[in-house]
């Protein structure tokens, strides 16, 4: 029960935040970025944390969603909401197709093949000038059209959109994890052979979660470029895919709150500390190594451990 009350309080605080911090557009900006980084991380958490699939090309699928939506909105003049849906579906379809190939490989073979596909998708975004506008980026992406009189142009309003999207992603994660499907995924991570001996079609389940994880990444990607109003290949590069792994691991792989904690630390901490960009990633790299060495369950694991101690 205390967990539910805490969650309700947290949601209320997040909802009221624009009113509390009315004179702090900068804080709002940071929180929006947290949401935008947390969404793809949720998708990766389902794959990496729960199923044990370390994908090193995750953000490329966010890029598939983002560029699909961008082309539909700018070139085909489609509305934002339909484009968002199409982007999510396109990312999911790309995840299903590419995942079906990647999942024929295991352990490090899988990691390297996902890395290779990530780089190939990046190369398409970077070089297919006619469609993606190439390395210079895809400008002129609109903010969502007003919904029932509610416009998404102003920062606080876009914040609610990002918050709602993040909440949706976390809700999907929660639903998956507590479902029969989610339990099979965890079983596959723990012992794939045993699960198969019990009659689980491992390939089907893993492809499904690869597709779902990619679709969630696509959601994050579409919102990200709509927020920045420009899609740039760099947002979906290998470095960003590594950052996504970092967010999931630092937050706590295989925990429901992990991606949120990870994104908060990744986006929020350097803003708070005001360190130069290059030192910030040096610090995060060291943090990642230290977490692997001393706290493989990440911040969520540390928090759970501390909570258990307090209660004992």
């Amino acid at each position, binding site marked *: 029960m205390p967990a539910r009350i805490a969650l309700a309080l947290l949601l209320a605080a997040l909802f009221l935040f624009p009113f509390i911090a009315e004179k702090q557009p900068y804080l709002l900006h940071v929180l929006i970025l947290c949401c935008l980084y947390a969404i793809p991380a949720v998708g990766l958490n389902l794959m990496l944390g729960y199923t*044990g699939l*370390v994908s*090193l090309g995750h953000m490329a699928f966010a890029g598939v969603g983002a560029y699909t939506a961008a082309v539909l909105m700018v070139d085909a003049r489609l509305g934002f909401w339909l484009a968002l849906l199409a982007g999510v579906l396109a990312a999911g379809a790309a995840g299903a197709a590419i995942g079906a*190939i990647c999942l*024929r*490989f*295991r*352990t*490090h*073979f899988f*990691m*390297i*093949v996902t*890395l*290779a*596909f990530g*780089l*190939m998708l990046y*190369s*398409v975004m*970077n*070089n297919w000038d006619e469609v993606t506008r190439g390395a210079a980026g895809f400008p002129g992406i609109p903010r969502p059209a007003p919904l029932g009189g509610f416009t998404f142009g102003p920062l606080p309003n876009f914040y609610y959109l990002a918050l709602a999207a993040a909440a949706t992603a976390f809700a999907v994660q929660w639903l998956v994890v507590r479902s029969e499907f989610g339990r099979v995924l965890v079983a596959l991570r723990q012992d794939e052979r045993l699960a198969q001996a019990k009659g689980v079609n491992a390939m089907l389940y893993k492809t499904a979660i690869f597709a779902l994880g990619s679709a969630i990444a696509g959601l994050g990607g579409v919102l990200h470029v709509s927020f920045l109003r420009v899609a740039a290949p760099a947002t979906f590069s*290998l470095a960003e895919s*590594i950052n996504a*792994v*970092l967010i999931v*691991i630092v937050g706590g792989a295989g925990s429901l709150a992990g991606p949120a904690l990870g994104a908060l630390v990744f986006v929020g901490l350097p803003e708070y500390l005001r360190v*130069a960009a*290059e*030192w*910030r*990633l*040096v610090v*995060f*790299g*060291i*943090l*990642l*190594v230290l977490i*692997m*060495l001393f706290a*493989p369950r990440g911040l969520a694991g540390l928090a759970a451990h501390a909570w258990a101690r307090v209660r004992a």
Partner: protein
Amino acid sequence: MLSAVLEQTVNGLMAGSVYVLVALGMVLIYGVMHVLNFAHGVLLMVGAYVCHFFFTRVTESYVLAILLSVIVLAILGIALERAVFRPLHGNLRNQVIASLGLILVFEHLVIAVWGPNALQMKVPATAALVPIGELRFPLQHLLVIGVTLAVVLALFFFLKVSKFGTAIRATSQDRMAAMVVGIPVERIDWMTFGLGTALAALGGALIGPLFLVFPQMGDAPMVKGLAGILLGGMGSVPGAVIGGFIIGIAESVSTLFLPTDYRDSVAFTVMILILLAWPRGLFGVRVRGED
């Protein structure tokens, strides 16, 4: 057309040489420790920066600068094995993630120290041209290929003949059995790691003068080196050499038919197609702990 193919083949051999140096280091480390170090590419980059530092600040001699950089990186590799990879022994996933952390650390440390811009390294061998048939190549191209071939031969000889080399092969084949016959496997671990990072430093020091020295210079060699390893067969040393050269030549020759921008994709497509056909690669060795 023929001379264009020849030109691209030499370019491919040159690029492939660097992939081979990276792949050899990774495959040796993988064989002995069952670690896949994704930070191998940034270590190549650090090697190039260290070489640049010695060459511009300390000594006039390029050869001496290469040697110093190789030594510094070998020490760095040994330190990393001690501090990061040994404690995570046996946990592939955590090792890979820690190596991703090392990528961030080194890439951004270098940016913080040397800045994000590419540095030039003026070595006489880049200016000198050598005629082959009707084509002329910079001496540095041929130097890269020659040094790599010499290193490959020396390494084969070392692995076959020397005691340390034999111990490396024994540990790769069966760590437990190697321990039983009295091979100090932990010493083999750090020595192999040092050897691997030394090879990466050599690669970085060799391509630095050709393609400038910049923070992302190791990314492509790392990924292509990996592709070469998978292509040749995970754990096979000759496979890594042949795989690295195949990737290098395939991507260079492809530029005759396809836009240069898609060169990397060609390398990956070759890798994925070959793996789908032969999951163990061309010279696949069955390595413990897999499937």
